[in-house]
């Protein structure tokens, strides 16, 4: 693979034995719990921050989504849902996407 970008795509195959209903449990823990690196030692990776924001948008509907089964994350529901409380996150997402040159691409599918 000769992709030059930082994070190559990879499928969710690593926990293939995990029941899909547990995805909400994984997200609850990995995004909101655990030790946080603080201060100058921490580095903010744009890719990672983008992913985190997208997941936070997703998680608001995770319990509905989990009913949809194993493919629940594939619909990119953050594009179609209109929760007002997400505006702040979406603003941050847009700013970040502009910063990394993704502006416009996310709108193409609409």
């Amino acid at each position, binding site marked *: 693979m000769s*992709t*030059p*970008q*930082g*994070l*190559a*795509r*990879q499928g*969710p195959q*690593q*926990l293939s034995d*995990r029941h899909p*209903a*547990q*995805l*909400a*449990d*994984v*997200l609850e*823990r*990995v*995004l*909101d*719990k*655990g*030790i*946080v*690196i603080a*201060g*100058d*030692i*921490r*580095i*903010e*990776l*744009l*890719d*990672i*921050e*983008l*992913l*985190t924001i*997208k*997941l936070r948008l*997703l998680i608001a509907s*995770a*319990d*509905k989504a*989990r*009913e949809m089964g194993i493919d629940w*994350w*594939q*619909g*990119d529901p*953050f594009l179609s849902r209109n929760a007002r409380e997400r505006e702040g996150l979406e603003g941050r997402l847009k700013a970040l996407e502009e*910063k*990394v040159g*993704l502006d416009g*691409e*996310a709108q193409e599918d609409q």
Partner: protein
Amino acid sequence: VTVSAPQETAYYVYGVVPRDQGLPPLEGVGLDVEFAPELIASGPLAAVASRIRVRSAEPVELDAEDAVARVLAHEAVLERVLETAEAVVPFRFGSACAEEADVVALLEAREEELVEALARLAGRVELGVKAYVDPVRVADAVCDGDDELAALRAEIASVGEGTAHLRRKQLDHRIAESAALERARVATALHRRLAATAVASCTNPLPEAASGLQPVINGAYLVERTDEGAFRRGAADAAAEHGAFGLRIDVTGPWPAYNFVGVDG
């Protein structure tokens, strides 16, 4: 906080283990499959970390699926480590340092806290519990156990739709109040029972109601590995005891002890 690293790779930190722990084979697992997680040691500690390529000129669109894959990769590394390690202190998603020296500095700066956490978690795992009741069965149980409500229900059933409207609203309100009380009772009883088999416990915000099930508890329990079976049996027994409410208990794990590290751990 540095934004957008200029260098080629950074170090992504999954968690911390005792220095002498060693790692299970982790090839092909992790946030960047090019780089297997390794140990970066300092004093009595070692960080489970992997190099991760930092974005260069070419932009890539990462969708929700990628995001989930990445989080699962973080979790997969820690679960593999947990299989063989006596203890692991999990880090939150997105924890990264620019240089290996920064990871070492991190271990030095927080050595006391991390050593204490590893000692506390040794031989223990986190189990998650989400429990739900069937709101219809709770409402039925509430009316069956209250003569006044039962009489009100019978009265409404015996008169016509229109005339019963106000009484019906009154009944619904009373049932909702009693049902909330019953759910709180179930949650308290359940949590106490589960916590009795755990060395530490905490509760988190309830998930949204889904598919006709009303959540009553979202708890995390730090349990001795040797007590996992007993804990699961206790949960199953509790579900059977509250069968009248249609109680369903989902036990998940064993997890790295996310809920028992950090500021409020």
